[in-house]
């Protein structure tokens, strides 16, 4: 499988891993991967980005929607959104992406 760095670009569509459970609580979120038994705490921004990674939106669309939600220009958030999604991939939370070793 490719690494997050290799495939996550503006037209990539991120799909949550089948073993990942999510809980949204007061706009933050917790992801728990039953396969790796990893838990990840997401702040408000990361929780929104995760919720938009639904297997339909491209990374570019996630950026636009995130910018809209926080009322900021999309070019200001594009790189941050891409990095957050790459982090999800590096942590083994997305389908078809190899996690980083020891991540």
């Amino acid at each position, binding site marked *: 499988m490719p690494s997050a760095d290799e495939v996550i670009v503006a037209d990539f569509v991120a799909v949550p891993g089948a073993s990942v*459970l999510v*809980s949204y*609580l*007061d706009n*933050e*979120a*917790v992801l*728990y991967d039953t396969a790796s*038994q990893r838990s990840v*705490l997401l702040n408000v921004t990361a929780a929104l980005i995760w919720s938009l990674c639904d297997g339909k939106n491209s990374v570019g669309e996630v950026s636009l929607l995130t910018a809209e939600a926080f009322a900021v220009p999309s070019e200001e958030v594009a790189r941050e959104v891409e990095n957050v999604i790459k982090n999800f991939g590096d942590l083994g939370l997305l389908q078809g992406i190899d996690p980083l070793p020891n991540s």
Partner: protein
Amino acid sequence: MNTTRGFQALGFSFRFESNDSTLVEVIDRCYRDMPASDREPNVLRAMTQFDSGAYEITFEAASGGPEVCEPMVFTAGVVSVVAWEVNHRAEESRSSWPVMHATVTAGPRGAVALCGQSHSGKSTIAAAAAQLGWQHLSDDLGPIDAATLCVHPYARPVMLRKGGRDYLDNLPVLAHDYRQFFGDDWFVAASELGATAVLEPVPLAAVVFLEWGDVASLEPMSKAATLHALVLNSTTLASVGEPVFRGLERVAEHVPGYCLRFGHVAEAIDLIQPLVGG
């Protein structure tokens, strides 16, 4: 053969047998807060092997033959191994519940689960709380019924490590023939320290996550941070998966979570007291 009465450890019932009558007295004393078994108990047995002086520890299910748990345990480790065997089987009997790596103490406002990894001070706080006469539900394992948000009592003895005992005054005196079974870690029934034993489930008032720190503080946590910390301190999540995760989610949703930093057990007690009430 010497034997204890039957004990009910959550869904696991057992009695303890040995050819060493002092060891049976010690186990009886350690588990004295545990309710009587409500069914034919399984048998945990420790038999002295006279050639080595060590004990062979076996488990015999109420319906089944014996299996060896540990073939050779020296005197100073025998109570610790028995406690581990009971813990493990009690936890398995509630494996579909969120079970926390936690000490649980209670007062008029309800139960407070003090969660943390080994050496985080859980048992020392449990002992100090017991000495104040607070109710004691559990040390080390906190079984939560996520449907009712109540903690069920699991009155295993409080484990007092050598370092933790330094923080506590007026500990029970253990005669030498009892002490020989404990090594560095002592096991003492909470009621022997002064706690009120609890037989019924108690509503959970707070979950508290322990951290050592120079400055004592009790900080509220967000619901998501509480869930994340519950996940990290659950003993049943890894084996069960989603049902336990949803149970922990329900706890985080309805029960306030706090981070407790402390450097001395007295500071921890002062900060926990308002949560427990009384």
